[in-house]
């Protein structure tokens, strides 16, 4: 239990610090963030938007790993893990898309502009959506597990292609991307150490939160499944 309290404190601290710490021209104390030209107050989204985008990727990766494991061992527990990870991934993917496009309205002037990372997260949303559409159309459990595992593996191998193609086809607008004129390379775009610290604390906190949610979610699927079987057999 103690880790849950620590996680609660960590995420509370990250939320308060991320929102309330002031952005000033010349940071004097540790709780002041530097002003990044072109981003100003908008920079604070990094503490919440980036972790959700990161988790939607991690969730997809875990879902693929457990899909692969299902095909190897044919254990329905693995399918429950893959499925619940995909569900969480979808939630985080939607959160990342929404927070990102609200931010984009203020920073770039439009909700959507087909920036490479916007396009990639859109592709990820499509993959998740297709996976759930496939799952809901199959009755038999093992068939559903096998086919969705196969599909997520096929989808997984297409992901690297997006990474290569996107920058060639469209201009990057994200802070830190190659075409961005406002800031430098990705991580150290003028963040000071306290900003970096809170950013990484946020990443760690959200990642632990994901694994916790995942565990609760797949356990509930497995228990529900076993319970149903027992009820049917009387």
């Amino acid at each position, binding site marked *: 239990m103690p880790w849950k309290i620590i996680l609660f404190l960590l995420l509370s601290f990250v939320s308060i610090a991320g929102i309330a710490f002031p952005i000033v021209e010349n940071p004097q104390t540790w709780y002041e963030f530097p002003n990044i030209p072109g981003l100003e107050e908008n920079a604070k989204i990094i503490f919440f938007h980036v972790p959700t985008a990161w988790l939607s990727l991690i969730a997809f990766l875990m879902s693929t790993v457990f899909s692969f494991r299902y095909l190897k061992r*044919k254990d329905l527990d693995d399918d429950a893990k893959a499925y619940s990870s995909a569900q969480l991934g979808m939630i985080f993917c939607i959160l990342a898309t929404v927070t990102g496009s609200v931010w984009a309205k203020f920073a770039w002037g439009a909700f959507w502009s087909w920036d490479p990372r916007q396009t990639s997260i859109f592709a990820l949303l499509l993959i998740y959506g297709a996976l759930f559409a496939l799952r809901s159309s199959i009755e038999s*459990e093992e068939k559903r597990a096998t086919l969705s595992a196969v599909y997520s593996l096929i989808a997984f191998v297409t992901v690297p292609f997006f990474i290569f193609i996107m920058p060639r086809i469209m201009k990057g607008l994200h802070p830190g991307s190659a075409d961005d004129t406002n800031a430098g390379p990705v991580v150290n775009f003028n963040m000071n150490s306290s900003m970096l610290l809170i950013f990484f604390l946020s990443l760690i906190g959200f990642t632990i939160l994901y694994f916790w949610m995942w565990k609760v979610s797949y356990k509930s699927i497995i228990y529900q499944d*076993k319970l149903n*079987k027992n009820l049917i057999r009387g």
Partner: protein
Amino acid sequence: MRNYSVSAIDLNMTFGRRLIFNGINFSFDEKGIYGISGPNGSGKSTLVKIMAGLLTPSKGKIIHKSSDKEIIPEKLHNYIGFVSPYLVLYEEFSAWENLIYYEKIRGILLDRDLVKELLKRFLLYNRRDDLIKTYSSGMKQRMKFVFALIHKPQLLILDEPTSNLDEEGKASAYDLIKAKAEKSIVVIASNEQTDLDLCSETLDLKNYKAVN
């Protein structure tokens, strides 16, 4: 040196989280007729599908050997003849065309005399150029026997072989099963007593339900 043998080691099959059967061991050697019986839903069709390599068991192994050498799964289909209610031939082709295409897909040369003899024995020779969709269900069932036997399988698996057959069809099927069993293994999965009477050994699946 045995011509052909099929043996199961501790077969266990679960669909989802439902156990179908558990701990099946058997060994069928050389020749003879073996039966598989059990109430509906006990997994007769599942077991014969596993035997034919169409399904992979959850646990355990099924081993096919020809001349004491193990047959790899990719080659297995040419050693097996399979009759099942789920078997469907291409309706838009005639019986003869179906057989010729299966010959090519198998990549073997059929003994044409054998094919003709089989068609005659099952009273289909005169209608060999008619499309399958014009056949009655009994004729389709007889056609399945022809399909299962043309490539001279060393293991013949019959799932409910006599459903849809009239007395005459049944008699010729039984004759054929007996003749086939002189040289190779015939496995019959059925609940019909007349089918099971042919078998020298019968595996009753209701004994393999125990959960350990």
